[in-house]
């Protein structure tokens, strides 16, 4: 058993060396991951928020059905979406002319699509929790309908930002879309490998120290963001963490 343990200890030691020596490969991959999922989250906010506003402020037939549809899409398995996008983006596929398969743009778009249901659902809840009186108030004060929408959105801004963070986290930590749509191509220009796909690649190549180093960075960022979301939702929680439950 001792022989089996050594590679683990060895891998972790080397992983720390890679992280603290500022290894350019490790950080290059981390930056690319941050960039892809950050852009994806921003895109999703840009097109998700207006949809969420319509869903929460407008009344139309089948509204709850549409909401339910988006909510159920949150659980979309990433490999299934990856497969769908692969077929669409493939050179011989219907959207092949866009040349998005195995490109950074393809990964960003794919992840933005992946997290859109998440952003819509969270943002709908945030907007609906804002008192509708604000809209009425704004309108009685002479605001136009769009100005009233903006007033509501301002109140719900925190919720929308948190939904953005949650989306970033989902995009950052997922493997299926990045691997299938991006192909995890390592290239000096236009590479599509990210933390999750490289972890899988380095395991396949038996390079466990790289895999462990990348996994540690992935975990630190994901946990860090979840912590921020948790604290932001309930700042008092920090004070009570150390105490025994009553």
């Amino acid at each position: 058993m001792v022989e089996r343990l050594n590679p683990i200890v060895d891998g972790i030691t080397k992983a720390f060396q890679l992280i603290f020596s500022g290894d350019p490969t490790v950080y290059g991959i981390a930056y690319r991951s941050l960039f892809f999922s950050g852009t994806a989250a921003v895109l999703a906010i840009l097109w998700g928020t207006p949809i969420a506003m319509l869903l929460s402020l407008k009344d139309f037939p089948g509204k709850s059905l549409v909401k339910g549809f988006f909510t159920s899409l949150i659980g979309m398995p990433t490999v299934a979406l990856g497969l769908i996008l692969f077929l669409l983006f493939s050179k011989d596929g219907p959207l092949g002319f866009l040349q998005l398969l195995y490109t950074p743009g393809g990964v960003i778009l794919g992840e933005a699509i992946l997290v859109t249901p998440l952003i819509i659902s969270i943002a709908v809840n945030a907007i609906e929790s804002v008192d509708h009186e604000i809209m009425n108030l704004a309108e009685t004060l002479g605001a136009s309908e769009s100005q009233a929408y903006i007033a509501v959105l301002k109140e719900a801004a925190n919720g929308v930002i948190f939904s953005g963070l949650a989306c970033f986290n989902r995009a950052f930590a997922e493997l299926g879309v990045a691997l299938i749509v991006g192909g995890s191509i390592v290239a000096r220009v236009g590479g599509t490998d990210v933390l999750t796909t490289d972890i899988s690649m380095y395991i396949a190549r038996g390079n466990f120290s790289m895999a462990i180093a990348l996994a540690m960075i992935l975990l630190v960022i994901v946990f860090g963001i979840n912590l921020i979301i948790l604290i932001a939702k309930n700042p008092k929680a920090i004070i009570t963490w150390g105490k025994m439950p009553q």
Partner: protein
Amino acid sequence: MKAWQTILIAAVVATMVVIAGTIAYVDLNARTTLRISTTTSLFDTGLLDAVKAEYEASHQVTLQIVEQGTGLALASASAGDADVVLVHSPSQEYPYLANGTLVCRKIIAWNYFAIIGPASDPAKITGENATQALQSIVAYGGNQTLGTIVWVSRNDGSGTFTKEQSLWKAAGYNWTQVSGEPWYAYTGTGMADTLNVAYQKNAYILSDLGTYLALFRAGTISSKALISGGKSLLNVYSAYAVNPQKISSAKFDQAITFIEWLISPTGQNVISTFGEANYSQSLFYGAVQALKDNAPQPDVSWIQDYAFFNGTECPVQYQANQTQLYQ
């Protein structure tokens, strides 16, 4: 007896039966499973599916096939995770023979690597040999706009990747330098995935002919095999048993039985005819009879030059007394 007592006893008995059954089942499986670590090309083409079906039909054993690159397949063998390895990179294989991890090497098959590229062949490599082709590709890559991928590599420690490196070297390039060019990309994964990337990117790639044909016939890719054949693209597949004196968990007897079957007329026939139905050509040539006959030439001489160790298929000190394999 009260009802709850009956239920309790029934539950306990049922649990014990399930546990005992599971243990017996797992144990039975463990005794009859042969773990084979293999290169991706033998698996992605479907050859090992055919081998598995034939072998399991006539033997009381389950073949558990793990598809890896040659590098990782060899590493798994020394980690004790395999009983048999099927690989195709003689220079990578030899150290494992020399350090005692593997024994009883048999060359089971050969075929040729191919340089695959877009049907339009923008670098104009058709008709050239492998060395000239790589030079043309480098020249073509240098003229492309930044971000255009011209060559896709596996770079996964596989036998195909080792071959690619030796081809770059033979063409007069330093691989480290070439791989730093902006038109050079790699996936770090298996052959089929990488071929697909190359096809989508209109790029050139080194592949074994078998995996390429499997994807081409399936309609997944429409790239062309522009160059194939010749000594520099020779691809030799070998089988090894894991040495039980080094890895105590290795199932040596079963491994030898499997290798004996692979080199038997039945096994060789499965290898040589594989693909005829689906690809209207065979993807692998059985090597056993060819080496005995010393024909066809020049293929057999190339195999001897490229894949023999000290002038033989397997030096006698690594034969583990299994002389029946070498008659």
